[in-house]
Structure formats: C-alpha cells, structure tokens
C-alpha cells in the first residue's frame, strides 16, 4: 500500500474509532455489572429520521400469539425468575432463550425485596434480544415498585440491592471516564448532577448506595431510561388485558395508548419527579387490588365486567401485585386471573407458577408444585430438584375459588 493509501486507510478507520471505543466501553461495563454479553440492539421497528427524538410507540395492543406466557412479580430473585422461565420451557439449562415464537409478558415488580434487580433487568434484556431472533417477544411491564423507585420511594429496597447499585455506579463511572478520554466522543452526562451528597436521617454508610440508586433510577437516569422506559403499563394481547394492579373504567376512558406513552415519557424525564396521577394511590393501575382479593367473592366483579366490555375483544384481566398464597387462580368466573405467587425469597418464596394461554390448549397453569406432577412419573426415582421443577412441569386447571 502506498503512503497516501496508508494515510487514507488510517484516517477512515480513525473516523470509526470513537464509536468503536464507545461500543467497547458499554460492553465492558455491562459485563462487569451483569456478567453477561448481549446481542446487538435489534433495529428499531419504525425508524423515522424526520421526527427527531421520536421513539417507536410501545405496543399496547397485540394480536393473539400461538403461545402466550404470563409471569408474575419477581422482586429481585434471579433464581426464581429462571425457575419460572424454565418451567415454561422458555430457557434451557444454559439460560439461552428457547421459547421460539412465544410471547412472554412479565407483569411488573422486578424491583424491591431482593438483591438481584440489575441482574434480572439485564437477564430479561438478554432474553428479549434472543427472543426477537426467533420471532418471539418478551414484554415487561411497570409494577408499583418500578414507579415507586423512579420516584425515589425506596422503602422496600434491600441492603444487597443497594450494594448491587453501588457496584453498578463504580463501573458505570469508570466507563464514563474512559469515554471522556476519547476526544471524538461527547463527554458523557454526569449521572450525579443534582443528586444529594447526603440523606437526612439515613446512616452515613449507606449514602453511596442511595446516591447510586437515585442517579440510576430517577427519571432519565441510566437504568430507568435504558430498561424501565421499555416497559408498558397496560397491555392487550389477543383477548387478554394485562396490568399490574387493575384497570378501572376511568383508565380505559383516559386511553390505554395514552397511559403507556405518558408513563414512558415520565420515565424518560419529561414530566418531573412524580408519576402521572393514575399511577399513584389505591385506585392506581399499578396499586389496585379490587379484583385480586384472595377471597374471590370479595372481588368487584361488576366493575371488572364493565371494564372488559369497554376494551374490544378482552375476555379477561391478568394481574400481578397481590400475592396469592394458593398459587395462580381465577376469580369472577376466570375473568380475573391473579398470577402473583410471591415467588421471590423476599416475598416468602412461593413455588414458581406461570400462566400459559395457547391456541392448542387454552388456559393452563404451569406449576412446580409437586402435588400436580404427572401421575405417570410416580414410580420414577427422580432427584428432589427434578420433582419440584420437572422438564414438562405439572398442569392444573385454573381454579375458580368459591
């Protein structure tokens, strides 16, 4: 290669160097925080360069897939998360997505009560990208604990979780310093701008952890904008209406697409510290328990029916948020399906169960509860672990609690 050619090649490579450096740093930081390497971000569905800063709309209504899996509250327990996904045949023993073209909906409350919050967020992100390649879809939703944490309400944070965020911040900051050393890159925004140095009434030893959590999770923080802004708040898939707490008629009137867009905009920092009004208080979409009383007859079935009538095609509402000690069950003639089984260690460690809705088999509960194992396995000498989480799981009918 002649000298001129050399110089040209060097220049053209160096034009790319800042982007490559940035990509390297992001990969290194992600690995340091989560132990994972992610597939590249899937391309945007509707790239529209003429509209600046516009994101493709969040999916509010989706058609019926051939297989739909609903997963309840995870609350910072990565092991239980994996158990639940394995139970549904969605991941293999190496944590690879093997769910094919299934649609998976996780109804919120990844955060709080456990120490694996970032690990779960990263793990679900990894699976989302793997699923996209097989024509599958993994949709995560906002629970009340996501909303609370973005607002700075840390009442249910655990010590381990605080530590996880403290470690995240150390690597994230190193990454920003590395990017800052490359002249071709814009100096990254300081995630600590406006974050207090101290917290009144809090033990000094925890200041670092809380600073990190505030920086990460406040509106437009690195973790909320990267992961939580992808969450929907209300969702219709086929004839199932998904929401963390519950929907009231006024929420439907307000507009489901509008709710999703407003909450996302809030998470991205466009409307200050506090979430929209329908996310706060006992009648909030993420706090309602009207259809989730464990004593089914105490549920407000009349209102539920009213809501379902106003959402075209909706036959049932699927909700998390209220721990069902008996496992997944239905109320109001199975028009309200309650899928929070309190599986996190921090919630009592309930046995993992997931709801399956498929074209072939309708509504089924996939459970790790040994009472429901296939009778055919009864003679086999299986290890204790396998009894609890067999490859094909146990099935039971959706119970209607009298």
């Amino acid at each position, binding site marked *: 290669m002649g000298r001129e050619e050399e110089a040209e090649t060097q220049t053209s*490579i160096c034009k790319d160097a*800042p982007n490559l*450096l940035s990509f390297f740093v992001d990969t290194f930081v992600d690995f340091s925080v989560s132990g994972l390497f992610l597939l*590249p971000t899937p391309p945007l569905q509707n790239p529209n360069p003429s509209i600046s800063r516009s994101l493709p709309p969040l999916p509010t209504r989706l058609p019926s897939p051939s297989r739909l899996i609903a997963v309840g509250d995870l609350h910072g327990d990565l092991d239980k998360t994996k158990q639940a996904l394995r139970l549904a045949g969605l991941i293999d023993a190496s944590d690879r997505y093997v769910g094919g073209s299934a649609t998976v909906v996780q109804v919120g409350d990844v955060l709080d009560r456990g120490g694996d919050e970032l690990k779960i967020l990263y793990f679900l992100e990894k699976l989302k990208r793997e699923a996209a390649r097989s024509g599958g879809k993994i949709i995560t939703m906002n629970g009340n604990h996501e909303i609370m944490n973005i607002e700075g309400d*840390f009442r249910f944070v*655990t010590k381990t979780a605080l530590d996880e965020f403290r470690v995240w911040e150390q690597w994230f900051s190193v990454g920003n310093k590395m990017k800052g050393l*490359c002249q071709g890159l814009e100096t990254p925004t300081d995630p600590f701008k406006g974050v207090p*140095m101290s917290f009144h009434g*809090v033990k000094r030893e925890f200041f670092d952890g809380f600073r990190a959590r*505030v920086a990460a999770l406040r509106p437009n923080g690195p973790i909320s904008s990267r992961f939580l802004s992808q969450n929907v708040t209300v969702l219709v898939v086929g004839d199932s209406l998904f929401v963390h707490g519950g929907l009231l008629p006024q929420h439907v009137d307000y507009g489901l697409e509008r709710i999703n867009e407003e909450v996302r905009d809030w998470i991205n920092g466009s409307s200050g510290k506090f979430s929209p009004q329908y996310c706060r208080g006992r009648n909030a979409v993420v706090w309602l328990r009207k259809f989730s009383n464990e004593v089914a007859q105490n549920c407000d079935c009349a209102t539920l029916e009213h809501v379902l009538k106003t959402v075209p095609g909706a036959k049932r509402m699927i909700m998390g948020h209220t721990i069902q000690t008996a496992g997944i069950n239905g109320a109001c003639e199975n028009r309200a399906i309650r899928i929070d089984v309190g599986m996190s260690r921090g919630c009592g460690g309930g046995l993992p169960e997931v709801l399956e809705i498929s074209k072939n088999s309708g509504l089924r509960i996939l459970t790790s509860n040994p009472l429901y194992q296939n009778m055919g396995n009864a003679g086999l000498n299986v290890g204790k672990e396998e009894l609890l989480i067999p490859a094909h799981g146990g099935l039971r009918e959706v119970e209607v609690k009298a």
Partner: protein
Amino acid sequence: MGLAQSAEAAAHVTQTQTQTSTQTSTSNNSNSTSLDSVLAEAAAYGNNDDTEESIEAKAQRALECPCIADLRTGPCGFQFSEAFLCFLKSTAEEKGSDCVSPFVALQSCIKANPNAFSKDVLGEDESEKSEPTQEYKILPPQWSREPQSPKSRL
C-alpha cells in the same frame, strides 16, 4: 474504592472459557476458528498485495487513533489495549464474549488503580464539588435509618 464484580461476573469467569491473552488472534466459537487462522496467517505474512486489510491489521490501526491515545497511557494502558483489541477482533454474535480473560485482566487493573482513567493528575471529578440545586427527597427503608435519639427532637 472497593470495586467488586457482581457474583454473576465471577461465576462466568470461573465456569466458562479459559483464554490465553498472549495469543494475537482470539479463539472464537468453533465455526470461526478456521477463518481466524487464515486471517492471522495473512497478517503474519504482511499481505501487501491485498487492498483489503485483515481484521487484525485494522484492529491495530484503530489502536493508533487519537481517540485511543490517552486510554493507552497510565497504569492500565496495557490491559486496556489487550481488551480493546480482542473486542475489535471478536466475531462472536455477542461481540466480546470471547474476550473474558482480557476483560477480567482490565477489571483487576482498574480495581487496583481506581484512578487509572481519570482525566488529570488531581483525579477528582468536578461533579463531586457541585451542590444539588434542590433537595431531592427519598423515602429510605427502615433498616437504613439512623436511630431516633432524644437530642434530635430539639
């Protein structure tokens, strides 16, 4: 500074590939090994007639760019270069997943030298000196609270 790897990262390191970071070419997934060795060979023999440069050569060029210059200096410059090179040459679907060893080496160096990539000798971020413009209130968990003492009731 007390940087710590997450438990996941530690587990990943102990359970998965053992990489030798002394090799110039990375050993990728089995289906790209033969390609790698072809490229390594071409680079070794300095294939001047080929206008298309090998991945190795391109990666080395990237290391010479102005953007990278400051990152190569300092106590972790070597580990950074090894990790960055490996990353550039990685053809794994999850780019860099075959670079666990140099990544871990870089992590260790950073843990030992927390200011390795700080901008100036003084090393402190300016952000630490700026005061927040308004009180950002959190609701802390009970276990993190200072015990109420009679004095504080004044």
